[in-house]
């Protein structure tokens, strides 16, 4: 019963929050609702007993991704409304609605009565993290490693891009010369 209540509550809230994200013209509202929606999505994981994924969702999306988003948002004036240019509005609505419909059909299509079944059911008595680990490091090992390599590539690229001027220090101590003088005097003594 608790799960049912929690599920519907979370669903309503999540949809509402994401609606705000899409509709709001205010950066701050959009960002906040997006982050809050992410938190609620982790709630679904908890309800499903996938604690590990829930926490990962929290840490990765809420704690890291969204935080970086908001860090970027600080370069804008968060208190001002964004001017949107949705022309032609009808076309945007139509295309957006169609894509949403297609997505719903793709995901909701298989869900009719008991047609959907878990391939890898949870092991009783084993921690949730272990379950994820087992799947990741057995069946999905190759995609996992590919993803890891891709991330590594991205990281290296990022470091190279950001590190072009790393030899120039903003905080370089220019008083070194003076310190040299003093040290010399000290040595002379």
């Amino acid at each position: 019963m608790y799960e049912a209540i929690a599920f519907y509550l979370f669903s309503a809230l999540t949809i509402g929050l994401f609606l705000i994200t899409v509709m709001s013209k205010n950066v701050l509202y959009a960002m906040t609702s997006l982050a809050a929606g992410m938190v609620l999505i982790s709630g679904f994981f908890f309800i499903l007993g996938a604690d590990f994924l829930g926490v990962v969702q929290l840490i990765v999306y809420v704690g890291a991704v969204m935080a970086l988003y908001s860090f970027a948002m600080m370069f804008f004036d968060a208190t001002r409304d964004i001017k949107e240019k949705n022309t032609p509005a009808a076309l945007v609505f139509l295309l957006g609605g169609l894509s949403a419909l297609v997505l719903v059909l793709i995901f909701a299509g298989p869900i009719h009565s008991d047609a959907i079944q878990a391939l890898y059911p949870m092991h009783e008595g084993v921690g949730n993290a272990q379950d994820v680990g087992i799947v990741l490091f057995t069946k999905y090992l190759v995609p996992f490693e590919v993803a890891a390599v891709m991330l590594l590539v991205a990281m290296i690229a990022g470091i190279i891009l950001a590190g072009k001027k790393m030899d120039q220090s903003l905080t370089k101590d220019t008083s070194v010369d003076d310190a040299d003088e003093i040290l010399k005097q000290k040595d002379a003594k």
Partner: protein
Amino acid sequence: MEVVSYRSVETFVQHIPEVTALGVWIKAIIILAVISAIAGFGTYVERKVLAFMQRRLGPMHVGPYGLLQIIADGIKLFTKEDIVPQNANKFIFMVAPVITAATAFIALAAVPVFPDFTIPEWIPVIGGTFVPSIAADLNIGILFVLGMMAAGLYGPLLAGMAQANKWGLIGAARTAVQFLSYEVVTGLSILAPIMIVGSLSFVDFNAAQAGGIANWLVWKQPVAFVLFLIAGFAETNRTPFDLLEHEAEVVSGYATEYSGMRWGMFFIGEYANMITISVIAAVVFLGGYSADGMGWLWIMLKIAFFFMLMLWVRAAWPHVRPDQLMWLCWKVLMPIAVINVVITGIVMMV
């Protein structure tokens, strides 16, 4: 009464009574009430300890030895005018401190606070209820706490962005940078003990270190312990890493425009986080608690030690610069943590 399902009963060493929803409720209330009170009391202790270390007296006038100062402060905070700046985003501005306090307390749900006990039978209604030490004993407890503390970064962040104040914005930027960076160190430093124990549950950690000081993880993972402590200081925004609200540079950072109880919620959140970090450090590295005898006193003392350490450091050490902070994180602490994890892994494999 439905059984709370997310418990790995198997991990408990000895038989314990069944945890009921009522017990969880009671625990939640206890945490809320007591930790709030302790957070308030923490301000008093902090002022006193800092004063003593500077050979001052600290608060003396309200109540005996200034003990009632917390109440006076509370009354002050509650009755003070709640000011919202004109250009601020009102809703976000008002919500931000709530996020800080809420996440701090949510994190506490997965942390063992006080040993478990059974309420005596003669008390009506709730008599005989078993109150667990952890409100929600998730098997990924440590990860949950870290995740919640990561979510807690939204408090200062949104506060700083919503208040239309340059100091607030800089404070918010510093929040994002500092919390994000040090989360990595926290995670990596705690990864090595997790590898050793093989679980993310506090209960397992506790069990793994049972049987005396020699079994404490701090001996096996001293580097991780130090890294975790340093990162913990940064995560709780304590000296020498309290750059988010560094008065000399950014007035009061994200809290610049806050007043009254909204400011007070930031404060409570900060102190709750301090307690959380102290508890984690005590449970993960210093042997945790034992259910028998004076166990509850020991865990209290351990937590108190970490709490005290934070005050002590504040009294003794200066701030670091923001660039030093980042440098320390990414170029010193993180490599060490990674190396520590690698070495731990090699040792375990061999």
